[in-house]
Each structure stands twice: as C-alpha cells, then as structure tokens.
C-alpha cells in the first residue's frame, strides 16, 4: 500500500460518491443540531446560554414580526453600503493606478500589503475622534476594511493584463482613457470581482465590530445589548441573520465572478502577434 495519492474519482462512480458526500453533510448537520439541542440539558442554567432551536425561532418571529430590528437593519445596511462604496471605489482607483505602473507599484505596493495585515478596527478610535461617534466613524472602518482586498486584487489584476493586448491597443493609437476602459478593466474585472467579494465581507465585519464597541443603533450593538441582558435567543437571531446575509452576498458575488470570467475559458488561449 504505502503512501499514494488517492485516485481521482472515476466518472462512472461519481454519482455514487456525491450521494455519499451529501449524506455525510446531512448527517453532520443533524449531529450538530442534536448536540445544540441537548447542550442545554446538561446543566440547569446552560439552557439560558444555548437555547433550543424552537426558542430561537420564536424570538426570530417576534423580532422580525414586530419590526423591532428594522431601524438597526437599515442603519447597518446604510453604513456597510457606504463603507463598501467608498472603500471599494478608492481601492479600484488606487489598484488601477498602481497596477498599471510598475514604478508606482514597486514603491507603494509593499506598503499596501503591510497595511492590509493590520486589523482596521483599531483605527476606529481615530475615526471616532475625527468623524464623531455617529454613523460616519463606522463607515470609515468599513471603508478601510473594504479598501485593501479590493486595492490589492485590482493591482494584481491590472498588472497581469497580457502585454500583447496592451501593445495591440497602442498600435491602434487609443487614448489613455480608452486604454483603461477597454483593455485594462475588462481583463482585470475577474480579480476585481474576487477582491470585491472579500472586500464586502471585510466591510460587513468591520462595520459590525465597530458597532459592537460603540454605537447607538445597528445590528452589532443590538446583538451585544442582547448579550449583556442575557437575552441569548435574540442574540443568536441577530448573529444568525448577519451570517445568512453575508453568506448570500458572498454566494451572489461568486456567481458574478464566474459569469464575468466565463469568456476567459481556461486561460490557455495564446495571442498571436
């Protein structure tokens, strides 16, 4: 026997294999659900911290049905949207500027990478000091979080535009604006969408974390308030809602990414010049 890479699934047996995979997934999900439901039963007070699923569902109906969360949802959505647009817009501009110029990317590129590795939430105090304790500071954190993945991916995407395409465009004497719009952007759109996907996730996380620290409205502070007041079922509803929205957005952007890179095939097309 020995070490050997397991053989790739043969196509004939693939249907069988996938059924097994789905079965495992369902079994695991069922196991986790059972574990959750029974955790509360081990100690008398534990059920407060890990309420059974029915309680969480009941709270969800109550919170959403009575519109208790509406203001918080709109506040958070507004903050995330603006943070994402500002950070993403700046990210694309910087990414294109740096990616299309080897000189600039050599000088500033490393700094962008280093700055990307710090948790943007620690800039929140600065944003509060400069922008006040209202929505703007959260938008700032969201923008900072969204900026870096988008800038880095755009930079890489633009830098990897095939030089052949650029040369062809040059022979056609296109203006700089046309160069950016018709050569760089369509080629880089794949990595840009990938960066946008990560950036949106970052904006959501950053904004919500900022809200948990200091806010008057929003899903983050709502969840923390529920936590502080021992209303854990409600807390799980809010966290679960954020998770579902984030996963849906991520999945949607994944579809967009596949749609956008569809024409590229497997990247093995050579360009004859």
């Amino acid at each position, binding site marked *: 026997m020995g070490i050997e890479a397991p053989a790739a699934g043969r196509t004939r047996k693939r249907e069988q294999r996938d059924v097994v995979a789905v079965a495992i997934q369902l079994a695991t999900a069922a196991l986790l659900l059972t574990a959750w439901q029974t955790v509360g039963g081990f100690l008398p007070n534990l059920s407060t911290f890990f309420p059974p699923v029915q309680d969480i569902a009941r709270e969800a109906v109550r919170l959403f049905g009575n519109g208790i969360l509406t203001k918080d949802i709109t506040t958070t959505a507004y903050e995330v949207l603006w943070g994402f647009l500002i950070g993403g817009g700046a990210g694309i501009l910087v990414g294109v500027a740096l990616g299309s110029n080897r000189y600039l990317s*050599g000088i500033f590129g490393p700094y962008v990478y280093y700055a990307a590795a710090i948790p943007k939430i620690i800039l929140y105090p*600065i944003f509060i000091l400069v922008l006040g304790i209202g929505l703007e500071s959260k938008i700032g954190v969201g923008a900072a979080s969204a900026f870096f993945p988008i800038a880095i991916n755009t930079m890489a995407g633009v830098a990897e535009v095939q030089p052949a395409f650029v040369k062809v465009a040059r022979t056609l004497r296109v203006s700089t604006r046309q160069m950016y719009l018709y050569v760089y952007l369509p080629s880089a759109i794949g990595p840009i969408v990938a960066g946008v996907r990560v950036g949106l996730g970052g904006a959501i996380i950053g904004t919500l974390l900022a809200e948990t620290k200091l806010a008057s409205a929003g899903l983050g502070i709502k969840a923390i308030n529920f936590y502080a007041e021992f209303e854990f079922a409600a807390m799980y509803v809010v966290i679960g809602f954020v998770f579902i929205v984030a996963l849906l957005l991520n*999945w949607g952007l994944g579809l967009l990414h596949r749609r956008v890179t569809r024409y590229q095939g497997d990247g093995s097309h050579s360009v004859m010049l």
Partner: protein
Amino acid sequence: MTTRRGVIVGRILVIPLLLLAMEGVVAAGVFNELFVAPPSSFIPALGRNLVSGDLLPLTWITIRTVGMATVVCFSIGIPLGYLFWKVPVAQRAYEPMLGGLLAAPTILLYPVFLIFFGRTAGSIIALTTLGATVPVILNTRQALADVNPVLLRVGRSMRLTERQIFRHILLPAAVPVLFAGLRLGMIFILLAVVALEYIVGIGGLGFFISDMSFRFKTANLFAGITMVLILSVGLMYVLTRAQKAIR
C-alpha cells in the same frame, strides 16, 4: 538599472515623507492634536511606553496569544488537511462547508465564545482557531493533492519506506502551497487576536489601544497602532524567511 534603484529609493522615502505630511497636516490645524497625534508626539510616546510603560509586556501578551492560537490551529488544521487528502469522501463532503465558513463573518460569534470561555485569552484563541483552521485545512489538502503522483511512484519504485517517502518526497513538494495556507492562517490569527483584544478589552496590544482611546491619550493611541504595524510587518517578514529557509 536606474529604475530599480529609483524604486528602492522611492520605497525608502515613503515613510519619512508620510510622517512629514502627518506633521504638517496637524501643524496646519487641519486636525486637532487631540484627534490626530503628529509623529513628533507619538514617536516619543512610543519610546516612553516601551521603556517605562506597559507596552512591552502587553505586546508580549499579544504575541503569546498569537503563538498559542497558531499552535492550536496548526495542530488541528494540518492533520485534518492530511485526513481530507487521504479520505476523498471526507473532502467532498466537508470542503464546501469549510469554504462557506471562510466567507462567513465568524469573528462576530465572539459573544458565544465569551459565554463559553469567559473574558479570557481562551475565548480569543478558540475563536481565532475557528477562523484560521479553515485556510490551513484547505491549503494542506491542496498542497498534498498537487504533488505529482509520479514523484510518489518513483519513491515506491525505489522501495522507500512510508516515512522516507513522506519526509523526502511528499513534504518538500507540498511546502509552497502548504506555507501559503499557514501564512494566511497566521495573518488571520494576528488580525483576529488584536481585533478581539480591542473589542473585548482584554489581553495585550488591542486592550492598550482601546484603553488609550477611551482616555483620549491620542499620542499613546497612535504609538499602540504603530506597535501593531511593527508586529504584523515582523510576522510577515519572519514567515517569508521561514518559507525561503525550508526551500
């Protein structure tokens, strides 16, 4: 030639120019010194806090938490990645779920971990492990799967023992992709540890930053942020060197 030197010179000049710009902006009154500490204020503060203040022990706490989280994350992630490679069914079943976990804002689950572990470093370590193990698992499996099977067959044809094949063929071939995963994991760990320290208000550097911001000690605040930058740069540098050394 000149362009290469020009780039390096430019890169070196960015930091002093940036600091000068900050200094100028605050001196010109665009930002109040209470809100944005100029370098002439926060660099001495950095020095002061390092020498006679809490900054060094607090930085050590953060490094220690990151270290423990890394150990836990790698000791769970790498074996699981190996397992997924060995048992393809496990991979096909769990990889989509893990991919989904990667996209989910897991750090927002921190209240749950606070319930479980209390306001201790344990909750931080547990939460960061949840997030950081995923790229490690995925990349370990990918790294092993990408090894050219021909190499393994050569090893078998030379009648090497399993251990020898593992150490001399499998491991070196898998290192690049594996390290990419480890690097991703560690960056996430550092990020999450500092972020959670800040949010929850426990531990090292994150707590320092949170504390200083509430006391309006802006110079110390900027000093703390600089310290985090230094830490993350240092970490990336160490990781890159380690990868080069193993090659």
